[in-house]
């Protein structure tokens, strides 16, 4: 999918903290799962995502700028790739739709083809399909959906990602 260079320029940062769960079932390989806390900060130009272990330490930090995505792990090892999706394909063996998440976290569809978009009574986006991902958005608050669930089934396997934002 086309990677948006910038969403709306370095406006006020969109920030979320909460918990994540990743459940990856690659066809013919061992499953991978991770759970913990996350903090998400996106000012349209720079996105910073911290993945935090339940016992306290930051496990990994992902920083995304136009044209470059970098991951740094707690042990200091680093990976980088042109786009965040490719970066996570490097790390988790399957592309994670980080660029799509930049929009879905705000309750918006990402640029590009949208299939089966559905809205609730307040016209808030509750589900859609993009880039092969089933996206379900719920528990809206002032900032956007408090719960984001992604799932995807393809010939490489079944991929699930959930984010739950802490109630402020």
């Amino acid at each position, binding site marked *: 999918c086309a990677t948006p260079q910038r969403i709306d320029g370095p406006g006020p940062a969109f920030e979320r*903290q909460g*918990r*994540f*769960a990743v*459940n990856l*079932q690659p066809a013919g390989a*061992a*499953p*991978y*799962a*991770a*759970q913990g*806390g996350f*903090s998400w900060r996106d000012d349209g130009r720079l996105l910073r995502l*911290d993945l*935090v*272990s*339940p*016992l*306290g*330490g*930051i*496990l990994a*930090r992902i920083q995304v700028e136009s044209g470059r995505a970098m991951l*740094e792990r*707690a*042990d*200091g090892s680093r990976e980088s790739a042109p786009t965040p999706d490719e970066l996570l394909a490097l790390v988790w063996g399957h592309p994670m739709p980080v660029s799509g998440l930049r929009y879905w976290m705000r309750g918006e569809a990402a640029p590009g083809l949208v299939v089966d978009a559905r809205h609730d009574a307040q016209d808030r986006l509750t589900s859609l399909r993009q880039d092969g991902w089933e996206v379900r958005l719920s528990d809206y608050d002032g900032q956007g959906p408090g719960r984001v669930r992604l799932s995807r089934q393809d010939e490489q396997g079944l991929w*699930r990602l*959930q984010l*739950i934002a*802490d*109630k402020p």
Partner: protein
Amino acid sequence: AQPALAQLQAFVDKVESATGRFQQEQISPDGAKRVQAGAFAFQRPGKFRWEVEQPYPQLIVSDGRRVYQYDPDLEQVTERAAGQAIGASPAALLFGSGSLDEAFDLQAQPDRDGLQWLRAIPKTPDAGFTHADIGFSGGLPQRLELLDAFGQTSRILFSGLQANPGIPAARFQFTVPEGADLVKMN
């Protein structure tokens, strides 16, 4: 008061099991703070329970062989081998057994806040933290301060610690709740 290194060794040798409560503050470099609170229990060697109650439930249980991590809202259970999971993690410092100086370099630190301190530096880089300071008093750990590679500090305050209370085995067992996804790792 006894130096921290002596209190740690006595704690590891004499306190076979314990229960208590914790409050955990994670302070990131830009000052953002996350606070969690809950209850813990451990039984040497290798059994422990870390139950976050506030602001949301999250449970980590090790039966000595397998470690289960369960989040009811996320409806996911991750199960992995105990050895690798607690290895050099903060939990191993207090709840593990055997000689700590296999996994950590232990250095005495000056007293502060009325506690006797030591610094534990993991010998393996993938411990997830740069160093952990433990503050003791009365032979029991009172505070654990972790610094991770990104400059985030995690401070854990222990309270109501009961040594050798006799804990039912079921506290360290875990059954996967109905409807939760179980993912077995390694």
